[in-house]
């Protein structure tokens, strides 16, 4: 079955040479919840806007539900919903007006879903939306997206500004959308990485306009570890390479590293060969993310991102470690030196 969302070599440069998205490839299968994470300015919002056809790419191709949204028929566009980061709904409308208005445009509009969500989120039907709180306005926008019974749902930081109860409730609603008989494929960008551990099936980490690491959430959690190796001498043996290190630090005879190891045999081998003591700790997705980007310099704008190929780490459930570009598995923080070039966008 073809992927529901696919992008190939997607590139977008804004005025002034600011490269927002650079050669991005993405494939999302039906029924998947794909979490896009990355620092501010990594290119997440621009990617979503390119996928939705709200921006024209300089290069590359986007397909959603088998076609390009610029030329897709009405019936296809009705199955796709998008809530942007600062989604504006006409502030003079009440929720009743908004729902009546949206129902005209969407064949699949579901009045029961709208009613259920308004009750759950305690949204008033007859107040002007402009007089509601920021969080309530956001919920009203999310309500209209979910009530269209979308087959594809793109959300840009959907939980920003929501209180914890509303946030949990939104997650429940997304799970209900997945459980619907006609299903749903969801792509969301977020900084709430903890929520993705429950919600997402796949996660892609964006940095400077590219997806630099991607994989199944379970595989991230199962294989990425923080490992501390203490060698018996005063120094780390010169020939030692930390297996699968995403980054590492050395202090005397101790190496502390974030590693991707398929199983514990790798540690047993180091213990046996070097007589080292090893502590291995599991990491949450958020910890992995922080460790990958901690201490990374905020580089100035680089208008020529293609000059320096960065690494791409694929966590695919396959045994072994695949680092496509750049040797990043050496001790001593080579991860930083092979990092992709700097660029910033405007999300």
């Amino acid at each position, binding site marked *: 079955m073809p992927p529901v969302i696919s992008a190939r070599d997607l590139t977008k440069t804004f005025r002034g040479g600011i490269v927002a998205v650079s050669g991005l490839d993405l494939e999302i299968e039906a029924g998947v919840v794909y979490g896009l994470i990355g620092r501010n300015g990594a290119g997440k919002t621009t990617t979503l806007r390119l996928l939705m056809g709200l921006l024209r790419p300089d290069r590359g191709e986007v397909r959603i539900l088998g076609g390009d949204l610029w030329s897709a028929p009405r019936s296809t566009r009705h199955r796709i919903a998008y809530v942007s980061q600062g989604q504006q709904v006409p502030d003079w409308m009440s929720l009743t007006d908004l729902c009546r208005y949206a129902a005209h445009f969407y064949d699949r509009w579901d009045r029961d879903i709208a009613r259920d969500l308004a009750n759950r989120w305690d949204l008033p039907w007859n107040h002007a939306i402009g007089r509601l709180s920021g969080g309530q306005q956001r919920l009203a926008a999310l309500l209209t997206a979910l009530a269209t019974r979308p087959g594809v749902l793109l959300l840009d930081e959907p939980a920003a500004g929501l209180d914890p109860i509303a946030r949990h409730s939104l997650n429940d609603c997304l799970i*209900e959308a*997945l459980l619907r008989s006609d299903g749903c494929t969801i792509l969301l960008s977020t900084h709430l990485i903890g929520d993705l551990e*429950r919600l997402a099936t796949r996660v892609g980490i964006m940095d400077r306009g590219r997806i630099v690491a991607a994989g199944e*959430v379970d595989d991230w959690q199962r294989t990425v570890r923080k490992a501390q190796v203490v060698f018996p001498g005063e120094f780390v043996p010169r020939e030692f390479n930390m297996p699968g290190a995403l980054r590492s630090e050395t202090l005397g005879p101790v190496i502390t590293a974030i590693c991707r190891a398929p199983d514990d045999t790798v540690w047993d081998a180091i213990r046996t060969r070097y007589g080292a003591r090893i502590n291995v700790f*599991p990491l949450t997705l958020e910890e992995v993310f922080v460790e990958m980007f901690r201490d990374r310099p905020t580089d100035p704008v680089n208008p020529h991102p293609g000059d320096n190929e960065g690494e791409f780490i694929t966590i695919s459930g396959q045994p072994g470690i695949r680092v496509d570009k750049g040797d990043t598995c050496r001790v001593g923080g080579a991860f930083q030196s092979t990092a992709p070039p700097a660029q910033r966008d405007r999300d």
Partner: protein
Amino acid sequence: MAPKLHLQIDPRSGVPVYRQMMDQMKYYVAGGTLRPGDQLPSIRELALALSVNPTTVVKAYTELERDGVITMKHGRGAFVAADAARLTNEEQVEALRRSAKHLAVEAAQMHVPSPKVVRVVCEELEALGADKTDAEAPLKFSVVAGD
């Protein structure tokens, strides 16, 4: 009628969610709370109750079936297997080792000798009213502490 299960997902544990679900189901079976033939919650119920992606529940159930803990009956749901084995010796040790590693690191940092660590653990077991007759237990703890 299956007993009500209280599954907890710890988002800070770094353990995959499906794995946490599997472990807790296994403990319920091992402890006798879940008995052979008991019906487990449906995928929909569990996904909504725990706020997790339904495919995660499917994965946990599929792995539990592969481990012989549950059986999936098409159209009827998931049931505890008739011959659901209690945790094997290796699985017990593996489950304990996860916690023991943290304990060992703390003990090593404070320079606490192994016998003292074992004594503390034994005291905690006694406080729980756990079985003290298993002569193997202190030996395993000392192995873990010295690992």
